């Protein structure tokens, strides 16, 4: 298992090759990419920043927890930071397991925990030239109104 924060483009197929093996009947790849619209605003790119040392520590903790809970050590997570354009991958999660149910659960667990507690932030840049830090808690509060 492995977790990393990188500044270079992510390579999902390399992650898939890393986790796959004859003992695993299910290899699952999640790729998060930069979307062109958020909250109705046209997005042109995203700048990701991080508290690198803590983010790696948290990501490694999540990967270890997933490995222990779902029973596989074939788990890899890579998150990219820096300037990303539309369609580029910001996160890749690879999980392989003898069986599919656990692979799906582990993959979902990892992305939800990552979004909940890994210190990474994004500043969206909009087609109109403005840019703003994304606050998921504010979005949730507004949605709940």
């Amino acid at each position, binding site marked *: 298992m492995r977790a990393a924060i990188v500044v270079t483009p992510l390579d999902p197929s390399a992650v898939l090759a890393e986790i796959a093996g004859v003992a695993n009947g299910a290899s699952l790849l999640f790729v998060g990419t930069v979307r062109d619209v958020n909250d109705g605003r046209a997005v042109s790119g995203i700048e990701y920043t991080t508290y690198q040392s803590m983010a790696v520590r948290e990501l490694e903790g999540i990967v270890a927890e997933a490995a222990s809970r779902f029973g596989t050590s074939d788990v890899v997570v890579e998150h990219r930071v820096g300037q990303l354009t539309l369609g580029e991958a910001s996160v890749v999660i690879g999980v392989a397991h003898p069986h599919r149910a656990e692979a799906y659960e582990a993959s979902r667990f990892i992305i939800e925990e*990552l*979004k909940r507690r890994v210190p990474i932030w994004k500043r969206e840049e909009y087609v109109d030239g403005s840019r703003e830090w994304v*606050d998921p808690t504010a979005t949730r509060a507004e949605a709940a109104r």
Partner: protein
Amino acid sequence: MTITALFFASYADVFGRSQLEMEVPTGSTVADLLRQLHALDPERRLPPAPLVAVNERYARHDQVLRPGDEVAVIPPVAGG
């Protein structure tokens, strides 16, 4: 004693910097440090009770600080 405060993303914008060396009395807690930080933020852009990590671990506001601690004030995270 000296504490290093770290600011990220929108909070770095609030303080106009990413790092600040701060003097706090021995025995100070995270909450005491936050009071000093709020005093530096007259526009109250920093929330009353932000997330904090001490030495790369999420910490409660009643945690007692030690000399040289690295205290990160953490905006709502938005990875993925």
